[in-house]
């Protein structure tokens, strides 16, 4: 699935109040963006994507975005999906940030 397809599903779950499923789907969208970025820039990546995010931030040919911060935000949502650890407002805050990153990635990266 593409990041935008995950986003559509995530938004439906979020609107229905199922924050854990929405969080999981938003993490999958974030993960898909990083895989796409690695492919489009010809970069290798590890499972945690940290080195990739750092490389993208150093790479002047890549469009500028807070890749490391966006990765963290996706992982916070993954944590919530797996462990149910956040208050609603914390999920909403992280979800909004992750959504901004996915929309950016679907646009002019």
């Amino acid at each position: 699935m593409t990041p935008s397809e995950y986003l559509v599903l995530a938004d439906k779950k979020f609107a229905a109040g199922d924050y854990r499923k929405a969080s999981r789907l938003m993490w999958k969208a974030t993960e898909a963006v990083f895989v796409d970025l690695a492919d489009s820039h010809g970069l290798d990546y590890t499972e945690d994507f940290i080195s990739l995010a750092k490389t993208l931030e150093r790479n002047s040919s890549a469009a500028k975005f807070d890749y490391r911060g966006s990765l963290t935000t996706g992982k916070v949502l993954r944590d919530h999906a797996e462990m149910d650890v956040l208050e609603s407002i914390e999920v909403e805050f992280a979800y909004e940030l992750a959504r901004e990153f996915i929309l950016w990635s679907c646009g002019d990266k």
Partner: protein
Amino acid sequence: MTSSGSTRDRQRAKFYEARSRNYRSQAGLLLERDSDTDSASALLYEAAKQCINAVANVHGDNPGTTGAKMNALRRISEREPDGSKLMRNWEDALRLHIHADRGHLSDSELAETLERAHIFIDSMLAIYERDR
């Protein structure tokens, strides 16, 4: 931007700023002396929250609950040119809070998260110094 809070707000802000620096210092000691990442993570999260309180109070806001702190951080970020980054750095502090409870971060993730939580605290303390 300068302080828009009352004298009492600024006194409270100073208290929170001192507490934030103290929590961070204690976290550093725990990491250095005992390699106690769980407790250090909990203290750094507290330091990050106190930073929000400090800056919010400088501007006449005294957030108590988690929700109020989130909304205060959003308002602070809206005033900053790099506000979006500030909010994302907060997510690292939040992840440390989860790690303190669940111990789920790998060594590489913990190192990354600690570094970025420090960036959040540094950024917020710089805003405090500028605006107080």
